[in-house]
């Protein structure tokens, strides 16, 4: 192995410093932005904007801090799968609870908690 003489040879991807700092700057920018947006009332759009910004931030962290961009694509697939299954779970549960919500009586119509 001649890794000792060659700086960039080795296992894994070495992120340049400008990239780390750049990603960090973007993350801070988006954080400020998402807080700023709450001072503007955009109705239903607010929560989707907040979530959209969160997704962008998460993607940045994943791609660069967690090296996904330079990694085996299978690792990204695992993460995407996790989110897909989560979406499935939340989606169906949300749909169903929305449908039956009117059948749930107010709390004081139910027997008190024991213990």
């Amino acid at each position: 192995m001649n890794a000792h003489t060659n700086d960039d040879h080795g296992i894994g991807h070495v992120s340049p410093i400008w990239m780390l700092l750049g990603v960090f700057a973007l993350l801070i920018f988006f954080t400020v932005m998402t807080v700023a947006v709450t001072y503007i009332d955009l109705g239903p759009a607010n929560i989707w904007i907040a979530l959209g910004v969160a997704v962008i931030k998460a993607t940045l962290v994943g791609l660069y801090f967690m090296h996904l961009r330079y990694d085996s694509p299978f690792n990204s697939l695992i993460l995407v799968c996790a989110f897909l299954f989560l979406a499935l779970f939340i989606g169906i549960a949300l749909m169903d609870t929305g449908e039956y919500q009117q059948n749930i009586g107010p709390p004081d119509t139910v027997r008190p908690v024991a213990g």
Partner: protein
Amino acid sequence: MSVIQDQVKVSGYGGQQGPGETNYINHSKGIMSWLLTLDHKRIGLMYMIAVLTAFLGGGLCAIALRTMLYMRSAPDVAPITTGTQDVYNQLFTLHGAILVFMFIIPAVPAILGNMILPLMLGAKDVAFPRLNLLSWYCYMAGATFFLFVLLSGGLDTGWTFYTPYSTSTSTSVAAATMGAFILGFSSILTGLNFIATIHMLRPAGMGWFRMPLFLWALYATSIIQVLATPVLAITLMLLAAERILHVGIFDPALGGDPVLFQHFFWFYSHPAVYIMILPGMGIISELMATFCRRQVFGYSFIAFSSIAIALLGFLVWGHHMYTSGQSAMTNAIFSLITFSVAIPSAIKIFNWLATMYKGSISLATPMLYALAFIWLFTIGGLTGVFLGALSLDIMAHDTYFVVAHFHYVMVGSMLTSFIGGMYYWWPKMFGKMYNETVAKVAWFLIFFGFNLTFFIQFIAGSQGMPRRYADYLPEFAIYHQISTLGSYVLAIGLFLVLYNWIQSLVSGPKAPQNPWGGNTLEWHTSSPPPHENFIEDPHVTEPYEMRAWDYDESIDGYVYDKAKAIELDKQSQH
């Protein structure tokens, strides 16, 4: 000249092991060499002892249950009181919880998977041996919690822990949820390990489609373990928070939503039923190939149907909630998707049947279990489809029909495939043969006893006998009596299996390296394997190409002809 040929001493292997050679069992001595071992085979054995002990405990609960129900038909002898009803509730809960979380989920992956998976890959170990050991300790810690539950007031919620009852009963729900939570961790660690191992430690020459089908099944199982079990973990954590702090997310008296608990629970627990059955299906694929001495019919269909079952299994959890207040629209959607799960299951069944067709079938004990599996899984799976139909399930839900359905799949299918797999790999694990006659008698008792116990429950259920009751109307007495008698036969059969195994350990004849002539890589090493699994690198070919193994009467086993194997391999490449 290929690299392979350079290496090959064209002599083959498979003769008797010389005396005095060490294997993984006698490799090192002392209790600490077991408790701190990182060897996947030893961890598999430790799992075997622990899991079979849990099986015994859960099984004894079942016998007690059935006996109570039998006695009920003679009320003068055993009058039913609230006291006996409480005992009954505790018994069926412990029976279910112990057998689900401590036996049926870990049984195949943690015992046979740990033992065989690295061998089938020609690897020295799983990817993360330390995590593997940790998973065993998690199992033991979870089991300890359940022991604590036993000693501290028991548990009477059913294995499903439904709220709001589970937030208000005075039994040890918090300890039981902690136990199941930790057991979940042990299951996650196993799954994680298998995924990484299958990805990273396959040998040169073994692409995905040269993997034994057992590994495909374990891979699909691992996906479910990894993606579903964490949801159980958070469910149980919230349930504990509910009990300890009264957070109220699932408690209607506090403004919570009890149906939401069921969504949480079944999002894990329906996929979990495939954690139970998929590895069993993998075993059946191996048994079919070896004992029909044939390439498995429709290899890639079986492989992909495992993955399809794993994924579809995530889409049907609502079929447990048709009558729980789930909305009509969701009911309809889940009912439709439930039917579709039958497709990949049926694909497997038909491919196994096609494998048997014109095969030279040998009715050795493992094969008998495989045949029982096909029979019983067909019944269990089809009644599952019945129950998936909304209109029928409204009537059959929470009756003995459901009890019969899931026992056909959990006991009839999963348990038979597990025992079949244990018999199949027994010589490999311990280097000993077992008494074939006793094994066959035990098989018959199990098959007969099982059907006697559970078939009648379909009828009782369709007549309206509800599940989880200590009491029943007189017209159901005959069903319960027959069922109880059947359960005794089943129990005798299972004890006979245990006797058979112990007797084999004590005085069984020495097993050859390859008693069945299978060609998956675990047969390419000695029985039992050495500490390092393989002395000589195994020769990777098509997993079910068995023609290079020749029967040798002097050792009652098969001997490998490597030259022939290379020749056959060349032919198959063209």
